[in-house]
Structures are given as structure tokens and as C-alpha cells.
């Protein structure tokens, strides 16, 4: 594989990407994927470990999805938990109240998330207001969702949450063998990664980067700033809502504190920022580091509430001060790695 055949800017614009990564990387990726598939079949595998990996997948999905509008697009949403909640509550309420399969509920949640993303995104992006406004509006949106989840008990069950009764039926997104959830989470993770990777390499991907780096210039270059930002935000919202449905079916219980709280929105950002929000792999790396750490913290210091979030906050401050491009960001100066991580 000759990667840097030519150095002219036109050909380096669309780099060979992952396919040009070389056989060593390809082999490593194949080994990791096969290993992940084989993992649940290891004898005496404790489900607890699988559950941690499922959570890693889950947060990786959320972080990667956030990165599409937050990382590529520079529109830092601090309200993505609202979309998680939207996904979780849509499928759950349809299932609990009307017996509609959560598989269908998943798509309802995804569609609703897209609608809400448009409704929130349009007024903010319309006038080309500064990015701060979007962040503020996203915070407000997240808080409205949380308050509705807490307060509108007739709809959402309020702060008591909604338990989901177990029926042993794969068509109802429930499985006797919980290893299925592992594979579903993995599939969802791979889909999200693929979407993020393809977007980065598409025409739309270059447009959104252009908009992030210089809106005025992008607009002069014929890019519709509004449409680009909106599309990215809608994709982010849809993927996030899908992850929300998964959460509900996996834990069979949801409450606003778990799926809609501001701290979840922040966790998503911290994970994306730690790994590197410019790369499609960033959030996965971030989740790989942070989820086990917070699991250990939560079990070791179970008596001290808030310690894990304190750590998240501290990490966020330190990353933003000393490593604003995240862990993967350290690799982005090298052309070979830059290709692979798709910065």
C-alpha cells in the first residue's frame, strides 16, 4: 500500500482513509473484532464484565454520535441526554401502555428525536448566531426534557421511573440469554462508527468541517451553513435516541435521573473530548478509558455520592486546559495516523 503517493493538496483532501492503513492495522482491527465476538463464549465469563463492555459500547455510541455535530460540526450540545430520554421513553411508553414492540418504538424514538433536533436547531442556526447560543439552547432543551420527565407524572411516571415488565420474546427486544444485548450493543456501536466514518469522508463531511472552521468562508464557498449544521445535529439526535431505547430494554427500568439528567449530557461530552472529538474513534477510546474507571470508582466509593461526577468534571477541565484535542489528538500530526483515525 502506497499511502502518500502524491502530496498534492487535492489528493490529500480525500485521504485513502482506513483502507490505506496497512495490513498490520487491518489485522489488529480484525483480531479485536473477532475477540469481541468471541468474548461472550469464553467459559465462566461473568456477565458483570460483559455488562461493563456493553456500557463501554453504549457510551461510545453516545460519544461518537455527539461527535458528528459536536466534533465535526463544532456545535457543542449539552443536552444530548434529552435525546437518550426521548428514545428510552418513546419505546418504553409505547410498550408498557400499548404493547407495541420496542423494535418499532426504537424507530418512533429516532423519528421523534429527529423532529426535536430540527425544532431546537432551526431557530438557533437560522440566523447564524454564535455557537454559544446553540449550547445555551441545548442546555435549556435538556432541562425541559428532564423537568417534563420529573414533573409530568401522567405521561412519564415522574421521578419514580417506569419499570418494563419482562416477556421472553425477541420480537419484544427481550432475550432470555442476555448475551444478545452484548451483540446488539456491539452492532449499534459498529453502525455508529461506520456512519461517523463515512460522514467524515463524504462531501457532507468536508462541508461540516468547513462550517466549523469558518462559517463565513464556508458560506461563500457555496455551503449552506444552516442545512449542514441541522443535518449533523439531526443525525446525532437519531443515533443518540437509538441508544436510549437500548438502555431501556437492557436495564428494564428507566427514570429521568438515569436517562435525561444533565450529568449524562456532560458525561457524553467528556468521553468524546477525552478520546478526541475530531476522530470517529475518539469517543470509543474515551469510553474505553472512562467507563471502567467510573465503574471502579462507583463500587469502591459507593458511600460517597458525587465522586465519579467530580472526577468527570476534573478530567473535563484538565483535558480542555492541557489536551484540547484529546488522546487521539496527539496522533493527528502524523499523516499515517491521521488517515487511520480519520481526523
Amino acid at each position, binding site marked *: 500500500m502506497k499511502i502518500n503517493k502524491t502530496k498534492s493538496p487535492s489528493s490529500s483532501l480525500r485521504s485513502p482513509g482506513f483502507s490505506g492503513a496497512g495490513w498490520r492495522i487491518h489485522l489488529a482491527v480484525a483480531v479485536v473484532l473477532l475477540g469481541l465476538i468471541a468474548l461472550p463464549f469464553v467459559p465462566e465469563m461473568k456477565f458483570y464484565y460483559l455488562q461493563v463492555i456493553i456500557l463501554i459500547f453504549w457510551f461510545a455510541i453516545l460519544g461518537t454520535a455527539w461527535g458528528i455535530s459536536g466534533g465535526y460540526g463544532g456545535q457543542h450540545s449539552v443536552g444530548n441526554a434529552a435525546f437518550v430520554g426521548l428514545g428510552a421513553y418513546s419505546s418504553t411508553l409505547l410498550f408498557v401502555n400499548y404493547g407495541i414492540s420496542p423494535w418499532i418504538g426504537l424507530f418512533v424514538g429516532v423519528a421523534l428525536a429527529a423532529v426535536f433536533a430540527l425544532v431546537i436547531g432551526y431557530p438557533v442556526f437560522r*440566523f447564524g*448566531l454564535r455557537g454559544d447560543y446553540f449550547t*445555551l439552547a441545548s442546555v*435549556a432543551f435538556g432541562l425541559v426534557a428532564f423537568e417534563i420527565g420529573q414533573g409530568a407524572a401522567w405521561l412519564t411516571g415522574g421521578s419514580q421511573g417506569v419499570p418494563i415488565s419482562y416477556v421472553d420474546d425477541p420480537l419484544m427486544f427481550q432475550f432470555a440469554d442476555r448475551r444478545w444485548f452484548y451483540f446488539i450493543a456491539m452492532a449499534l456501536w459498529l453502525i455508529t462508527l461506520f456512519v461517523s466514518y463515512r460522514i467524515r469522508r463524504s462531501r457532507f463531511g468536508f462541508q461540516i468541517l468547513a462550517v466549523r472552521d469558518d462559517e463565513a468562508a464556508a458560506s461563500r464557498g457555496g455551503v449552506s451553513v444552516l442545512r449542514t449544521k441541522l443535518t449533523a445535529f439531526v443525525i446525532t439526535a437519531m443515533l443518540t435516541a437509538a441508544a436510549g431505547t437500548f438502555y431501556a430494554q437492557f436495564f428494564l427500568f428507566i427514570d429521568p435521573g438515569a436517562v435525561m439528567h444533565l450529568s449524562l449530557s456532560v458525561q457524553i461530552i467528556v468521553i468524546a*473530548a477525552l478520546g478526541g472529538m475530531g476522530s470517529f474513534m475518539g469517543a470509543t477510546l474515551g469510553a474505553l478509558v472512562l467507563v471502567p474507571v467510573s465503574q471502579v470508582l462507583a463500587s469502591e466509593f459507593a458511600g460517597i*455520592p458525587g465522586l465519579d461526577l*467530580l472526577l468527570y*468534571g476534573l478530567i473535563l477541565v484538565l483535558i480542555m*486546559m492541557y489536551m484540547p484535542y484529546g488522546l487521539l489528538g496527539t496522533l493527528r500530526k502524523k499523516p499515517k495516523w491521521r488517515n487511520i483515525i480519520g481526523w
Partner: protein
Amino acid sequence: MFWSALANGLALGAIYALVGAGLNLIFGVVKVINFAQGALVMMGVYAVYWFAELTGMDPYLSLPLVVLFLGVFGYFVQLGIINRVLTQERTSQLLITFGLGMVIENGALALWGPNHRSVLTFISDDILILGDARIRLVSVVAIFGAAAAVGLLLWFLDFTRVGTAIRAVAQQPDSAELSGINVKRIYSYAFAMGAATTGFAAVLIAPIYDIQPLVGEVFGVMAFIVVVLGGLGNVAGAAIAGVFLGLAQTLFATYVDPQMAVAFVFALFLVILFIRPTGIFGRALRVA
């Protein structure tokens, strides 16, 4: 009932306006949205609590100490953290203040637990009856205290040397620097003053609300809404927006549903953002 709701809404709105004024000062000068504002309020409230607990004195007497404490804290936040990242993207500055807020809030949770505490001041049990309106005296103090604090802030900005320098930096940092103003130091002063106003607000809040690690959250969030509605950098607009929000929230809670009052205000904010994205009194702040 209407007049009582109105009076209580006014008290709430006055505090929103005060916290918002501090946020607006920081935003107007340093151009950073301080997401830790609510956490600073919480810190102030706990400072009031520990002052009252340890000295046994009336919580209102902690005012100078708490204001000074938060001012110094804010000064060092700007000096030690935000001044170092001024050249970075603004969103990463914003995430830093967000992380800082999380650290403070969850630090308080880890240190003191989620228990609700309260402080009693000498007028805690007194109720003022004006015609049909019944209002707690501590709320009346909050209204006048917040008004006085905002007035003091405006006076300071308009009539003192440092205040003039702060306004100069807010308008034109480069020209301010050319005329011999140490811009980074002014940033620190501005942040210190923004934090000090939350200290002032905390002293007014402490006797009214239960003291727990999330007590500041709603004030921090409302402060943003106040700032966005009133116009970024517009202190008088923020004051009006604060009172408006406080009234809207209290009236909704009284007549419709107390559980959904906060959600109503946020939804109202989103609607206003939809109609007038730059706020009620705001001028458009556009990119480039």
C-alpha cells in the same frame, strides 16, 4: 393569592436578576459563558451555612465575608484557569467552566452529602401582610437586597477607576491594552466581581431555600436564560428579564402546576429563542 404570588415572584425574579447580572458581567468582559455560576451560588450558600453554624451569628451578617470569599475564589479561577485558555476555542472555555461547576457541585455532595440543611435568621418567621399579599420578610429582604446589589454593581462600573477600566476592556480589549490597562488583570477583576455577586445572592437565598448541593443549579440555569433574554452584556435588560422569569415561574406554579413551573420557564425560553433568538432586548451577535 394573586398578590402573594406576585410578591414571591418578584423576590425570585430579583435573585435571578442578581445572579444573571454577575453572569452578564463575566460574559460582557471576559466573553466566556460561566457555566459554574450556579455552583458558585451553591458554594456561597454553604459558606453562609457554615458561617452561621460555626459562629452562631445571624446568617445575614456573613454578607461581607461570603462576598469577599467568592470574589477571591473567582479571581483565582480566572487567574489560574481561564486566563490560560483565552486563546483557545470559546467552546473549550465553556466546557472548562462546566467541568469546574461539576467539580464544585459534586465536591460539595461528596463532602457534605445530599442532606437538606437550613439556616435561621432573626426574621425567618416573620410574614409581611400588605393588603391581600402575604410575603415572608426574608423574601422582602431578597427583593431589596438584590436591587441594592445590582445598583451597587452599576455604580461601581460607572463611577470607579476599576469599573471604568472594566468597561473599557469590555468594549475594546486591544485599545484598552494600548492605553495601559492590564487586560488580563481586569479579566480577573471582572470574574471576581461576577463571582462576588453570586455571593451576595447566596446570602439572600440561604434563609429562603433548603441548603443542599444542587441548590444553585436552578439559579445558574435561570441566570443564563436571564442573560440570553436580556441580551448578552446588557445588565439592565437582564434585570428586567430576571423579574419577568421569576413572575412567570411563580404565577405558573400558583395557578397551573407547581411541579412543571421550571419546565414551563425553560419552554418559554425556548419559545422566545425561537421568535427572537437574540433575546427580548438583545442585539444580534453574529459570527464574523
